[in-house]
């Protein structure tokens, strides 16, 4: 890629928009994933009785649905990112590519 093309893309407002949006969205979701996971791990490390507490009258404990929720949450945030990237980010990318004539 020649320096001229790089300079044109870097100064392109939609490139700046794409970069800013994708980076902040990616980091926010990463943070959400890490909070969910390390939150769970910290509970395991520091508050075992809370996770072993029963839900209702049966034997099911708080930890079971919580653990399952971490798995489901992980899958959901992955698709949340992909949905937005496949529509919004890819549209922006396509515009940039078209306008710089590549």
């Amino acid at each position, binding site marked *: 890629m020649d320096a001229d093309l790089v300079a044109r893309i870097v100064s392109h407002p939609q490139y700046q928009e794409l970069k800013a949006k994708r980076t902040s969205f*990616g980091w926010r979701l*990463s943070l959400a994933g890490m909070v969910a996971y390390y939150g769970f791990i910290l509970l395991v490390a520091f508050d075992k009785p809370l*996770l072993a507490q029963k839900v209702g009258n049966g034997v099911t404990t708080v930890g*079971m649905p919580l653990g399952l929720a971490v798995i489901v949450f*992980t899958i959901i945030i992955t698709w949340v990112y992909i949905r937005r*990237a496949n529509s919004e980010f*890819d549209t922006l990318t396509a515009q940039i590519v078209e306008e710089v004539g590549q």
Partner: protein
Amino acid sequence: MSFDRQTVRHLAMLLAVGVATAVCVGAYAAGADLGQTTKQATNWTAIGMFCAFVAVTLGITKWAAARTRSAADFYTAGGGITGFQNGLAIAGDYMSAASFLGISGLVFANGFDGLIFSIGWLVGWPIITFLMAERLRNLGKFTFADVAGYRFSQTPIRVFAASGSLVVVAFYMIAQMVGAGQLIKLLFGMDYLYAEILVGSTMMVYVLFGGMTATTWVQIIKACMLLGGATFMALAVLIQFGFSPEAMFSKAVEVHARKEAIMGPGALIKDPISAISVGMALMFGTAGLPHILMRFFTVPNAKEARKSVGWATTWIGYFYILTFIIGFGAITNLVPNPANYFVDGEIAKGLIGGGNMAAVHLAGAVGGNWFLGFISAVAFATILAVVAGLTLSGASAVSHDLYASVWRHGRVDQAQELRVSKITTVALGVVAVALGIAFEKENVAYMVMLAFVIAASANFPVLFMSVLWKGCTTKGAVTGGFVGLLAAVTLTIGSVSVWEKVMQNPAGSAWFPYDSAAIFSIPAAFITIWLVSLLDRSARGDQDRAGFPAQQVRSETGIGAAGASGH
């Protein structure tokens, strides 16, 4: 050594015959020798089903061989795999026999604690999706060194990347090969040695002739078999309880020796530092495994790369939920019938064949002998497929990074590079078998974890910083990467699982008190990369930093990215 079509076909036939003979001779020998305590009765159903799997996958390899011409075909299936297919293949790479049998066995023994591990194995995937997947696809061609070294001085970064890849591949591979040998004794009732030769020669055929196309399809088929089999088992268990988890849990609590303790966190996670450290190794290690990273180059563009991880995350998450149900199903189905499943009919003596056999016994309990044979065959096929993926990534590190870039400085044609890949594949196959045999009696339980710690401490920080931080320089990346690698290995040697259990030092003498090195070795790598890059005043350093905008443009937009070769 030339590989024209005719030779390829002849060699493929020869190897296929060899494999078939090895299976039959092995089975015969197993029938003749049932004296060993650890070896089970010869399971013809399982052997038959496994042979069927091998026959189908060799057929696919033949088809793939006809399409494998260029280096791009060999390394990345010409970039022609769809996101959905690649997602299944990634899941196939990741759902090893260890995670299927190991986690269901862990749940069977400890209940809730097994869930903590399943979650750990899964949470790295979103991070890969958000920060790495599409950037990898846009920057890379064949190996992760293409990405990590995009703007750097090629020789040092590729020497590092190849070292990181090969070390990870070696530890992961030893664990798989030893696992294969142990499994074949338990599941097929065959000798350890046959397992090694069987796995080594079959995977060599896949990789050598079918390259990435065959390896991918082997993974896809195996992933479907594993997901299908596990789904059937989980449903069979849930039906017994009218789809009420509460009913399943209460039955498990009633029959399990540890009673209600299985419903909450137990002793598996000893201290907070270990808990977080193991979590970090699992989370960031996934993003540094060379055979997983390589999969992102098999899809045509960034969109498909994203979809790959989406599907991979979905299937892997679903699979871990299944293994959890399977573990509890094993408690409720096996414990009430000790005579059938436990040594001498006594629960205290453990499951016949060991704790990892919970899922296999459950398969027999809910689906009869045929299904037990099927699950056994799937477990073994899983190892075969994972070893094939590892070998391909090891071979590409040697041929693409070391031979083509470092040794020949890029002045090499495709045919030469391809030839080196194939020679390396054969060499790695032989090494894998030799290592499998050498480590037969060793305790290799720590090796997969060590592979993850190294991937998280060496490969991941370098990849992450080179792609996302403009100040990163060659010197910083290479120094930091090697610091991470050394710290990971050194601290792991000092931990209980190696210092005491493998090196036989007296109990209590281990000088590294935690279960995983990651919490120290990952920051060590990041800080070194940052500090050395910051202090780097060399001309090369300036050049590295100046190269960032062009790299970023390509990683964000895909302009100039290596495309699909088009089939």
